[in-house]
Each structure stands twice: as C-alpha cells, then as structure tokens.
C-alpha cells in the first residue's frame, strides 16, 4: 500500500488572534525537512479570523495554509482546537506535524496525538530525515540533559513533534511569497466545549524565559529577595528576563515562574548571566545550550565556571551594579 501521507505541517499558534514573529519560527525547520523529503512545508491555523495569520504564514514560507475559522476558536483551548486540528490532519494526511514546545503547543499536540492515536516526540532540539526510511529523526535531551536521545516513529503517521523554541533559525519574511489558502469548516457548539477562558492577566513582570534572548539569573549566592533587585536591574537594563535557580525559588526569594533547570524551564538564550549560581547539574541541564554563558560567583571552584564562556570570581553585589552602570552609559539609557 502506497503511503498517502505527505508534506510537513507547522501549527501556527496565536493568542486571541495575535501572533509574534516567533509564532512562525518552525516554518524554517519545516522547510528544511520538506526540502530533504522533496515535499512542501504547509501551515495550519485555527482561530476566529485567520486571514492575516494565513497571509503571514505564506510570507514566512508556507506553500499552503489550512485554516479553520469560527467563533469557538477565538482563544486557545485544547479540546476545541484539538478536535478541529485532528479533522484537518485526518482529511489532508500530512507526513509530519510540528508544534512549538510552548504551553499551547504541548497542550494541542498531546490532545491531537491521543485523538489520532499517533506518537508524539517532545521538546526536540534537532530534527533530521533518515536517508533510508525517510522517517524523521528527533533528538531531545534525556534525563536532565546528561544524554541526548534520538527517536524515530516508524509506526504511525503523521509523525508529530514539539520543538524547543529558538533552536532552529527564523525563516525570512518575504511579502512576495504567498501561500495557497485552504479554508475548511469545523463547527462546534459552545455547549460542547469543555473549557472556557475567563480572563488573562499579564504578569506585572512578564516572565517569558523560553523566548528571551538575554537572561540574568540568580542563585543561592544572591542571598535573599533584596539581592534579586540587583539581578533584576541588570535584566531590565539589558531588556532581558530574570531567571533563578531552584535554591533561590525554594527559599521563597522569587516565584517559580523564574526557575531554570530540571524542575523549571529549559532555556536557550543568546546570553545567560548566572549570578551566585554554583551550577548544580540540575541547573546546568536547563541552560547549558545557551550561546554565551557568563558566570559570576565568589567560589572559584563552582562547577558553573566549567561551562562558562566568561567567568568572574567575585561578589555579584560589587560587579553587577558596575555592569548596570556601564551598560546604561554605553547604551545611552
């Protein structure tokens, strides 16, 4: 029996109809896989009004965009979106479906995987096509980042995966590139939806560690919540996010949303500045793939120095304010 599954699909996530360039990032990885397979990269979007998002997906390289519009799909909720998404996948039979490893991507992909009874690889940091079998090879960190495991799903289609944000390069935005738009309908009575989003309140300090280019983190060595105001001052000066080690979170100095590491977030910023973090293996698992790591610690023997691009042995209380001052000067802030 010939395999009728073809093309690489990318889910375009949005928040109440609003996307950011990052929403389209996987069209880059999708294109790379599709080129290797000699197939097309396509997007799928589910929302109240999807025209603008579909057009953008075309600009970012999608050849075809499959779209479902409906009042039930204004705000993301897993059951409604998964039923709509599964209807598209069942009808058009993609070979591969990619989602971002965000709360939305994880929620949707898992619900669709269970509905379609297909495997789901999660939090991929590399994707390749196996030359012989034309199956996707997915690499992810296994057990606290101590190992890298590569998986293949030769049993079910589509092959689905969530992909860690910022691992693959952003595709180019080109207004000359346009997608063919395929509109499908999927209706759902409001009574049938199991969940309803009542409100969203933006954090006073928006913590979006997984998308941040710059993260300044504090650990046990910061000594208390007052110390974190120093850490935060540097994060703010650099336009970055504030992170923390488990020790700092467990001490109650900062909320859990800031935690980086095995029981927190896994991050891959361009610059990671660790203040007073010794570098326990569980913390390193969450940040070791950052492009540039700066470690500031009083203890010259701290393991964090073994993986730091730049290390400074010293007291963060002395150094960090100096960094803030000098950055402000040089950035004219």
């Amino acid at each position, binding site marked *: 029996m010939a395999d009728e599954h073809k093309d690489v699909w990318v889910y375009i996530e949005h928040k109440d109809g609003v996307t950011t360039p990052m929403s389209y990032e996987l069209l880059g990885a999708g294109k790379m896989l599709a080129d290797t397979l000699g197939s097309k990269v396509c997007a799928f979007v589910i929302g109240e009004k999807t025209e603008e998002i579909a057009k953008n997906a075309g600009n970012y390289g999608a050849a075809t965009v499959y779209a479902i519009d409906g009042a039930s799909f204004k705000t993301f*909720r*897993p*059951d409604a979106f998964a039923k709509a998404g599964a209807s598209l996948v069942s009808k058009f039979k993609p070979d591969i479906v990619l989602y971002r490893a965000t*709360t939305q991507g*994880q*929620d949707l992909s*898992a*619900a669709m*995987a*269970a*509905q379609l009874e*297909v*495997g789901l690889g*999660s939090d991929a940091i590399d994707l390749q096509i196996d030359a012989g079998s034309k199956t996707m*090879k997915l*690499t992810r960190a*296994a*057990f*606290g980042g101590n*190992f*890298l*495991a*590569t*998986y*293949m*799903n030769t049993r*079910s289609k589509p092959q689905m995966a969530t992909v860690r944000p910022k691992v693959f390069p952003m595709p180019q935005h080109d207004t000359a590139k346009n997608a063919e738009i395929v509109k499908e309908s999927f209706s759902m009575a409001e009574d049938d939806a*199991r*969940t*309803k*989003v*009542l*409100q969203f*309140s*933006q*954090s006073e300090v*928006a913590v979006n560690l*997984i998308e941040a280019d710059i993260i300044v983190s504090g650990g046990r060595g910061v000594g208390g919540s007052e110390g974190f105001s120093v850490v935060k001052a540097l994060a703010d000066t650099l336009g970055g996010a504030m992170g923390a080690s488990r020790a700092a*979170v467990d001490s109650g100095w900062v909320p*859990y949303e800031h935690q980086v590491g*095995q*029981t927190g977030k896994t991050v891959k910023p*361009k*610059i990671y500045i660790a203040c007073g973090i010794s570098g326990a293996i569980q913390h390193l698992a969450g940040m*070791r793939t950052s492009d*540039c*790591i*700066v470690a500031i610690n009083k203890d010259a023997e701290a393991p964090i*120095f*073994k*993986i730091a691009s*730049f*290390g*400074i042995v*010293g007291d963060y209380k002395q*150094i960090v304010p100096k*960094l803030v001052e*000098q*950055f402000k000067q040089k*950035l004219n802030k």
Partner: protein
Amino acid sequence: MKIVVCIKQVPDTEAEVKWDLQKGTLKREGMDSITNPFDEFALEEALLTKEKYDGEIVAITMGPDKAMDVLRNALALGVDQVYHINDPAIAGSDTLGTSYVLAKAIEKVGNVDLVFCGKQATDGNTGIVSPELATRLGFSQLTFVAKVDEIDAAGKKIKVQRGIEGGIETVEAKLPAVVSVSKGINEPRLPNLMGIRKAAKVQIPAWDCDAIGAAKDKVGTEGSHGKVVELTTPPPRSAGEMLKGEMEEVANVLVGKLLDLKVIK
C-alpha cells in the same frame, strides 16, 4: 467527590543515570528512586481538595514491584485507596501507552470527578501524559495549573489559574477534569509516624493489564510508537575565559565582550 492522583516513581534526581542501550530505556534497577517531585504537589492538592470539599482519594501508579513505595507514601499522607498497576507487559511504555493504561485504570476506578497529576515527570520530562490522559477519558484538560480557585461538585464545574507564557489565564471547565499542577501550587506536607506505621500494614492491591482491560499490543516497548535509535552524550562545553583584575576593569571588559555579540540593543 472522587479524586484520583497519578503518581510516578522516578530515579532520584541526584542519582547516576544508567541506560539500557539495547532497549533505549532507563535501567531502573539498582537506582535510588523517589516520588516524582511534581507528583508531590498533585498529591498535596488532592489532600487539600478533600479537606475543603470532602471526598475520597484514590492514588494509582504504574511500574515494577518497587514502585509500590510511592503508594505507601501516599497512604501515609492519608489517601483512602491505592492501586498498583504492575505488569511486565507495560515496561517501556511511551506516553501514548502510559496514558492508555492510566485511562483504563481510571475507568476501572469509576465515577471519577477529578484527576490530579504533576505537570511532568523528572525522568521523561515530556509533560504530555496528562493532556493525553484527559483526551482519552474525554475529561477537561487543565495543564500548568498554578491555583485551583473553586470547585463546584454539584454544578460539575472547576475554576483554575494556569501559568502560561507571559501571565496567568483563568479557566472554567466542566468536571470531570484532569488537572496537572505546577510546582509552587502548595507546600507538600510530610507524613507523620502514625501514618507511616499504618501505611506499612496495608496490603496494596495490584492490577495487571487484564484487570483493567488494557490490550497488551498497545502498551510496553512493543506498543511504543517512538523508538530510541541513538543515545549520545552532549558535546562537552569547555570553559572559556576567566576575567581577572580590578572589578571596575573586569566589568568594563565584560561589557565590551557582551556588546560585541550584537545581541544587546
């Protein structure tokens, strides 16, 4: 209200990890094991829910003989009933197989209103078993839950706060629901001596695939969709440059080096 808590035994996060390269699964034998840290929050949330709204708590786990330890701990903390899903056929199940087995067990428990899970397990770290479980059961799927606002058992509704990128989302959902909780939702209690003594005497009932009506071809290594084809250690990251000297000068050098990366604007 009938509440189920799903608990997983995981290798101690401090333990040295060994892999079975042939099977591509963890070698769990001989490793120190603990209750998955996130499941401790799920268990505590179940206990708090029972205290506030009344009800019965059933804790389940799937795993080999020694996974029973996590159920004993749950008993010591005050859950009412436990079931140990233990069958050689389920060893090596992927997330799809695991959610299938758990769904079958929860159906067997019957008349369940709420299922609490940890948001992920520290060994597999996928976080996809609980949403898959919700889908399989046809229950509401509530993930990354940072707070349970209220439960209306009679009206079959639950209101929770979810920590998502950039803020907090308040969601109302129909019961039954699968709620996976984040760290920080509560402060897990410790068992007391009396609880531990009582728990030690309990005969823990075991269920195999037949007992819960799970098809063996959908579980275990054989039933898994994803197979490990390669295991490697990540490329070592070597230490870079140590900046030494007067603090003012060190700060100056670092600022220059970081600005050269053209990331900071």
